[in-house]
């Protein structure tokens, strides 16, 4: 949850009133650790910039309508700026138009918004990030063999981008490998564990598994462990979290792609403040992604973007 009462700024330039400007941030979720990390970054930056924020998102990444309702409710509070991670950017077009009409600057984050309303986008290129995972997968399995893919969601933009990025990466960069039918575990670790086990059951010669988010990856790890194959199957994950980091250190997971969620949150607030002040912004703020494994997990650069 964000800070308490929003600043009563009648206009978009809330800073002029002397009170703290209020920035509403609507994300794609709030329950998962990734979003908690984004929120943390946003709150830290807000404290630094002396603004108040609220941070909310629907319970799951398929609740497009719920996100619309949050957008309209936030509009009632007349924020000085909006940070927005769209579940479906076209669906939001109308409401964003209302924000524009009310002169409220919009900063997109996490994934692009298909519209010219957002002043800038602070996002990870999920496709490129997943392609990077595919590159490492190919290397680690020696360029051939069966690879399983467990994705958290087949309809959300992140889920699709990571899936497609990985599949494209494998197709173009790893022609010797055979990628199995993609399975979806909803990010639920227990479900993903069962999926991984069943994949291994049906394909005992699997060489690698890619888990497209933390829940999928940690679940896959459980499945591999329950099959007593820990360390024998190349497992690549996404994002951080204690379980993944421990597994990488222990060698049961080969490595993972991490984004910079804390940085993403911070950049979003920073951009919003700049927008309130009328400063110009770059069209895209790439918050980046990085590959990490046993070798670099303790480096300062990686440590800075991981969360437990």
């Amino acid at each position, binding site marked *: *949850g*964000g*800070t308490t009462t929003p600043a009563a700024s009648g206009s978009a330039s809330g800073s002029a009133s002397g009170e703290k400007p209020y920035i509403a941030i609507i994300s794609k979720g709030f329950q998962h650790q990734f979003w908690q990390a984004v929120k943390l970054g946003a709150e830290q930056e807000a404290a630094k910039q002396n603004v108040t924020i609220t941070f909310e*998102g629907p319970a799951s990444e398929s609740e497009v*309508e719920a996100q619309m309702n949050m957008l309209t409710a936030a*509009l*009632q*509070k007349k924020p000085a700026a909006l940070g927005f991670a769209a579940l*479906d950017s076209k669906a939001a077009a109308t409401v964003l138009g209302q924000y524009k009409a009310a002169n409220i600057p919009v900063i997109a984050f996490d994934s692009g918004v298909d519209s010219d309303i957002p002043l800038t986008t602070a996002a990870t290129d999920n496709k490129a990030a997943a392609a990077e995972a595919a590159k490492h997968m190919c290397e680690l399995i020696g360029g051939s063999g069966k690879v399983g893919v467990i994705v958290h969601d*087949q309809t959300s933009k992140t889920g699709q981008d990571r899936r497609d990025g990985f599949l494209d990466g494998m197709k173009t960069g790893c022609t010797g490998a055979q990628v199995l039918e993609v399975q979806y575990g909803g990010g639920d670790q227990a479900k993903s564990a069962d999926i991984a086990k069943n994949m291994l059951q049906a394909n005992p010669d699997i060489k690698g598994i890619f888990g497209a988010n933390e829940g999928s990856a940690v679940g896959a790890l459980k499945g591999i462990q329950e099959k007593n194959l820990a360390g024998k199957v190349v497992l690549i994950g996404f994002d951080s979290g204690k379980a993944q980091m421990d597994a990488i250190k222990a060698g049961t997971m080969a490595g993972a792609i991490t984004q910079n969620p804390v940085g993403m949150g911070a950049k979003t607030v920073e951009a919003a403040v700049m927008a309130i002040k009328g400063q110009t912004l770059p069209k895209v703020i790439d918050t980046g992604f990085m590959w990490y494994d046993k070798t670099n997990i303790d480096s300062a650069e990686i440590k800075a973007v991981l969360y437990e």
Partner: protein
Amino acid sequence: MSTDSNVTTAAKGVRRGGLREKLQQLMALLGLLIIFAAFSFASPTYFPTYSNVISILYSAVVIGLLALGATLVIITGGIDLSVGTGMTLSAVMAATFIVTWGLPVWLGILCTLLFGAFLGLVNGTNVAILGLPPFIATLAMMLVAQGLALVISKAIPIYFDPVAHSSYLWLSNGELIPSTGFPNAVVVLVLAALVAFVLLNKTLLGRYDISIGSNEEATALSGINTKKWTMIIYSVAGVFTALGAIMISARLGSAQPATGAGYELQAIAAVVIGGTSLSGGKGTIVGTIIGALIISVINNGLQIMSMPQQWQNVILGLVILVVVFIDQLRSKRAATT
């Protein structure tokens, strides 16, 4: 004392020309107003504004429409778990008809409503003819519809063209009465509620609905074709679901193949908050609409108050408890006086 209160509550109460029932609805409305007033007090600047009231109404539309259909089904003593993903599938079909096949908007809408009726008919057949428990029949439909929505859409949202299908989008976002900010979706909900009200209170369908819900076997022995009517009622519920599908896809400008799961519980909650009994035989349309509004007001109000999100569910849960409890108390008291 258990028996005493059991029997004595049962023992009490006369229906005086439906006066009590009207009173009961008035009280539910009062509950809604109290919640509204509380939020207005907590956030006087942002909550009780014209535009926020419209936000509230707008966000009640889809759940409201689904709940209307669910009311009719629940009154038979059944339940419909498929309204959420059934809506999703119907929305995908609407987009398929209009976007993929290029049917004219009016025809696409008609086909979608028919498709909804078909889904309902399948539920009704499974319940009435195959004799499956409604929970299972509609749970199966929930799973099947969820899967088919993904299959048909290839798990990708289908977008309406803002120009070519502007009339479709207008159904939700447009304003019949210009520059009032009053979206058509709300008008649709009101009209649908009226239709449901007439169906339930003035037609054979409504009479057989409550009769089946009160005692299906006795109704059948009275010479009513209860199977036929059960199928009709589920089909009509399917039409309301399809209407919900049209409204949500018109609002979002697209058919989202993954939304919808979870809507069924909200819709059923709205129905029950509105005073309809899950054991059948009893229910009102006005109550259902009030139930949907109560959920919508609470969600909106807590967001406006910037309540930390994890607390929102806690409070929603508690408020539902309190509202239904008071409703319960009141109807008990009303019964004793």
